[in-house]
């Protein structure tokens, strides 16, 4: 087992990783920027080291500083959390070159799956349905139009290097395709320094369903069932749940097995998430693989009883999974709400500031993952996630009832948060019925 790990992240996920290490008896080194100097979670690490000023580029995103911190503190490995350097192939490669373990997949798997066109090829090899579309980068507008007419409108244009909705365009006919093709290329070029775009059939009102997988270094891979993350606003997930409320058991089986085929085809190691779109007929289409732990991993932990961060560490330590697929079962329903420091009344713009009122919910069925507390200042330098509120109950109606009461209890002020927005969604008739898709929030709020 690894004996000393550097946590190359901040906030709730840094605390989450420190907690897991603590329970496993592993020493931790926390790194922090000057903005996070007073964070109480730093006191829970065995060592905490300042790596730079508040600006991410000079701290949490600064590879030399993090590697140097790892070297001077003699750690075996680095856990990158999510965001920041978690999907940075270059960082993983430097870790390897410096003889420091990277708690995540191999450099090769990251590189392969980080390229969405390559990832689609992997899925096809694994006989996993993908959204029909161009078999790679579109050379020009003419090719785009030809393929769009083959697969039929509506189609969506996406950046190869993309994410977060940038470089995306949905088009419904030849005329709009012309304008959108160039606009998407320009946007992708500006956002990612890479103007390559591809094209897919646009699935109408799909659900976003993703499968959690873990693979060990011996080639064993197991899934931990799915999460439904359809409650999104501008491609940012707001609420996640497990299991997906509309999947029948046999569909769930097929979906999860498909995810495992992709993972095995990519020779993947450690925790990863295979993302799918689910259409109205419950047919699923592979989208991509996230090569890291995800924000919403706790819902999977609640329904399966497995600590995914501990599994990441065990796998990185060389331990085998040592169990079979049938040993992993799911019980009840878990829902997570992301509590962000954002003002829903002001178009969800970030709302940094000092929290002077803070009361967290508790009691049965409630889990809170947060680094926030009364007196904590939400910095404008980092993302606005301040807490994850997770509930677990026997049934979905009970989980919704518990989440509602927990949201109503949760008091954070004077900064504005997404608590009222989450409460409004949890109270919506269609959410209660499970009739949601990725457009639900934009259509109804």
């Amino acid at each position: 087992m690894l004996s000393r790990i550097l946590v190359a992240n901040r906030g709730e996920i840094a605390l989450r990783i420190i907690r897991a290490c603590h329970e496993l008896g592993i020493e931790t080194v926390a790194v922090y920027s000057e903005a996070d100097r007073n964070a109480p979670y730093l006191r829970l690490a065995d060592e905490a080291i300042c790596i730079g000023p508040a600006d991410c580029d000079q701290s949490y995103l600064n590879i030399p500083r993090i590697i140097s911190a790892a070297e001077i503190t003699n750690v075996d490995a680095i856990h990158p959390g999510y965001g920041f350097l978690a999907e940075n192939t270059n960082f993983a490669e430097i870790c390897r070159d410096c003889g420091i373990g990277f708690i995540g997949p191999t450099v090769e798997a990251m590189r392969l799956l980080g390229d969405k066109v390559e990832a689609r090829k992997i899925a096809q090899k694994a006989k996993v349905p993908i959204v029909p579309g161009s078999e790679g980068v579109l050379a020009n507008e003419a090719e785009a139009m030809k393929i769009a007419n083959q697969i039929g409108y509506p189609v969506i244009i996406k950046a190869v290097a993309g994410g977060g909705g940038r470089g995306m365009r949905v088009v419904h006919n030849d005329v709009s395709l012309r304008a959108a093709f160039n606009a998407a290329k320009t946007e992708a070029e500006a956002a990612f320094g890479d103007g390559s775009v591809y094209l897919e059939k646009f699935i109408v009102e799909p659900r976003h369903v993703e499968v959690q997988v873990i693979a060990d270094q011996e080639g064993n891979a197991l899934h931990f069932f799915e999460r439904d993350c359809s409650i999104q606003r501008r491609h940012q997930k707001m609420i996640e749940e497990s299991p997906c409320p509309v999947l029948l058991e046999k569909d769930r089986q097929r979906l999860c097995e498909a995810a495992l085929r992709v993972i095995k085809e990519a020779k993947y190691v450690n925790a990863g998430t295979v993302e799918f779109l689910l259409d109205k007929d419950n047919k699923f289409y592979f989208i991509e693989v996230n090569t890291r732990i995800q924000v919403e991993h706790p819902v999977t932990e609640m329904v399966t009883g497995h600590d995914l961060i501990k599994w990441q560490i065990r796998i990185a330590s060389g331990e085998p999974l040592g169990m079979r697929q049938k040993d992993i079962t799911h019980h009840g329903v878990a829902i997570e709400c992301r509590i962000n420091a954002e003002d829903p009344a002001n178009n969800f713009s970030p709302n940094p500031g000092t929290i002077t009122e803070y009361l967290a919910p508790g009691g049965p069925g409630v889990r809170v993952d947060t680094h926030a507390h009364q007196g904590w200042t939400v910095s404008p330098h980092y993302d606005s996630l301040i807490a994850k509120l997770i509930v677990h109950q026997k049934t979905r109606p009970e989980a919704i009832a518990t989440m509602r009461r927990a949201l109503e209890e949760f008091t954070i002020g004077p900064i504005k948060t997404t608590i009222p927005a989450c409460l409004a969604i949890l109270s919506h008739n269609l959410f209660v019925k499970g009739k949601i898709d990725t457009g639900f929030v934009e259509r109804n709020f």
Partner: protein
Amino acid sequence: MAEKDADVQKIKELIEIMKENDLVKIDIRHGEDYVSLQRAQPQLLGTPMGPMLASAPGVPVMVAQTPAGGRATGQGKGEGLLEVRSPIVGTFYEAPSPDSQPYVEAGSHVDPQTVVCIIEAMKVMNEIKAEVSGTVVERTAANGQAVEYGQVLFRVRPD
């Protein structure tokens, strides 16, 4: 004298009033006279670890609690000294090689361009410049020691 005592007495009274009434700040100006009192906001932030935690077994402690600025140097605590702080994370070396003389020692005069030490990060030896002028009073990092961003390396008495 008497006036000073009266002041002290007044301040004591004001402090009592602040405590009793949970005030955090009082400013009083009488023509040229000015009194300003400010108490800490009662907050968790920045308070030292509670005694419970400190006494609990297996509880970790932070290394290097020294407050860090950027590369900028600043006033030493009430001593009128300037500080040379580490601009990066790495290993501190006082000399270019084990056999060499230290770049600077107590008593050395430095100007902003003077190299005062090396910090090794990812096998790269980074020469660190004083960025201030003055006389080195003390070195606060040990040779070969790991230093974090913003850690004070030298204190310098300005010219």
